[in-house]
């Protein structure tokens, strides 16, 4: 008896992103070791669009390990940066003056040095 083909469709994930996700899963199928760690390092070294696509894909597919590493990489891009630097990195237009958010003023004035 031949089983029917099961087709899974993910309308939100592009072919390119899905192939990267599958690549990740194949490498990590055997468990973590030095090689997988080296693979991870160059895996997350991609342009912003790919990285963000991977974040969304990993979230939708609920692949925790992948979600963690791409999430961490995204976080590292924001960590310890001034607002101006964040605008430059993420290509955000300057559509507002600097608002004095109460937290900003009290807790992180050195962000503006």
């Amino acid at each position, binding site marked *: 008896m031949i089983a029917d083909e099961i087709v899974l469709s993910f309308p939100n994930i592009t072919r390119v992103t899905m192939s990267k996700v599958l690549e990740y899963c194949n490498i990590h199928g055997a468990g973590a070791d*030095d090689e997988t*760690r080296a693979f991870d390092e160059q895996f997350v070294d991609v342009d*912003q*669009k790919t990285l*963000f696509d991977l*974040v*969304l894909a990993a*979230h939708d597919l609920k692949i925790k390990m992948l979600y*963690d590493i791409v*999430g*961490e990489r*995204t*976080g590292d891009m*924001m*960590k*310890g*940066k*001034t*607002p101006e630097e*964040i*605008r430059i990195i*993420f*290509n*955000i*237009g*300057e*559509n*507002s*003056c*600097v*608002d004095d*958010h*109460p*937290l*900003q003023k*009290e*807790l*992180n*004035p*050195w*962000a*503006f*040095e």
Partner: protein
Amino acid sequence: MVHKKSSGDTATTSASVAGDSLLEKIPESILNEILLLLEPETLTTLCSLACVSRTLQSTVNKALSSFSSVDLSAFSLDSQTFDGVITSFGKLKKITLDCLRLSDSSIRSFLGPNIEELVLVLTLEFSVSIDKSAVFDLIRQGSLLSCQRLESLRIKIRGGDFNDYGFLLLGIYHELPQTIKVLKLQPASALETIVFLKTFIYANSLVPLAPMTFGQTLTHISLVIDIISDTLLHTIAHCLPQLVELDLKDRPTSERSDDLSNLGIQSLVKCKHLTSLSLMRSWQCIASWFKRTTDIGMFLLSEGCNRLESVRFGGFSKVSDAGFASILNSCSNLNKFEIKNAFLLTDLAFQDFSKFPRSLVEVKLVSCNSVTSEAVSELATCTSFEVLDLFGCRSVADSCLHNISRLTLLTTLNLGCADVTDVGMAVLGKGNTPISCLSLRGCRRVSDEGIISLLGSEGKIRKTLSSLDLGHMQGVTDNAITTIADACVGLTELTIRNCYHVTDASVMALAFKGRVRRLDLYNCTSLSGKSFQFLKKPLFRGLQWIGIGRTRLNRIGDDGFDEICGERKWLTICKDGCEVGCHDGWQFHEF
């Protein structure tokens, strides 16, 4: 701050305003999760994000109101500031904060039925009268009892002499709600603890129908106490047999007759669920180590408590290899092992180490002079190490570094006062260790050459290093520091105290790179007043703490200091020789 708005570019700016930035399109829930991964820098990152654009600001506001836990201990806020900040958060379940300057009303605003975990730190300042602090009044008025879900309470008073403030938390046991599972107090009184446990808990167990009071669910207890005695351990084990974690630290100034002995250690065997045990005695003016505890106590402990996962012993000067090895070998789940000031510990304790499978993650052998590279090489065969601390082990040399450099999970390495040389540094530099926290304090035989080869471009260390301690190293000169400034992209903390050959050129190199946030220059006698210029903006971007005691920078007049402090309000300049962040706690410090 002035933001330039070029009118000629309005066309282009409005095009990019349309939110085509990928960051702004990320769903809030995902952004929240990413931000939580950034602990402990979540708050500072949120602050930066809030000022980037309106879209992100509203995302940040929503994120803040959804956070259930916040850590404000790095900022010593006054009441007004605190009240302004706390409104940004929603219902908080867990708060960590420095409450020395807070008023009654500020503290009451977050104490209540939502709170599950509370960490209150009071950093003593010379000029503030601590017994007038609002926290103590509130504690005595029963405000903590109103926190009906409070499960974890930590109160820590740091800085100053134990003798001066050891009484401040007396009476605290009566003010705690019944739900407490985790209790950490610094300082605490052994006598008060004994009396309370015996009176309330022991009595309750004899009369089971009596209303339950505090202590029924207590599983984790951590006290910085005046004396660790047999009576204390016996009482704790007897009254709290469900204990999972016991952590006691003391620093007695004189010898006591009831000092911890084998009997006290043996009584711990009653705690069948004990997984974490820490008994640490630090050195004070008189070396009053645990002289009455010997190998026999350790044998009894290892037989009775073999489910231990974390063991920390400090000051057990009469316990030898046999005793320590028995713990190491019988506790198969052990993942953290620390031995401090054990003068009888030698390589023999580790000779069978590699024969059994181990899951050790953290090993600290501090000031154990008889431990040599052979033992460390043997230890380093366990590939799961993340933290290895060998501070003060003067007999450890280069030969163990081959094995250490193969530890692919190692993030913290302390080789202070070890006998390592430049050759060893080169070996480490070529290795696979992703070290983020490295200390070479007092390694006299390491010079510039060693440091430069440590940060070589083939290795990982230059990319992963965030905290480096090169204190008391005469071989370090400007060459090494300029290399460090260039190569270490993630370095935020650097200590070069007592490096007599470091000159202004080093400070200049570090200032222009602007990455270091905390810098310790205590007693760098070759620095001149010129270096003071480098403290001005825009150099040293993001500098939070700098130690300039006993250098010529100290002699700049008050005007100079006022200028810098005016420019940089959140920069702490320490003239007193404290360690980074002024967190060593045992010195008076005028802020």
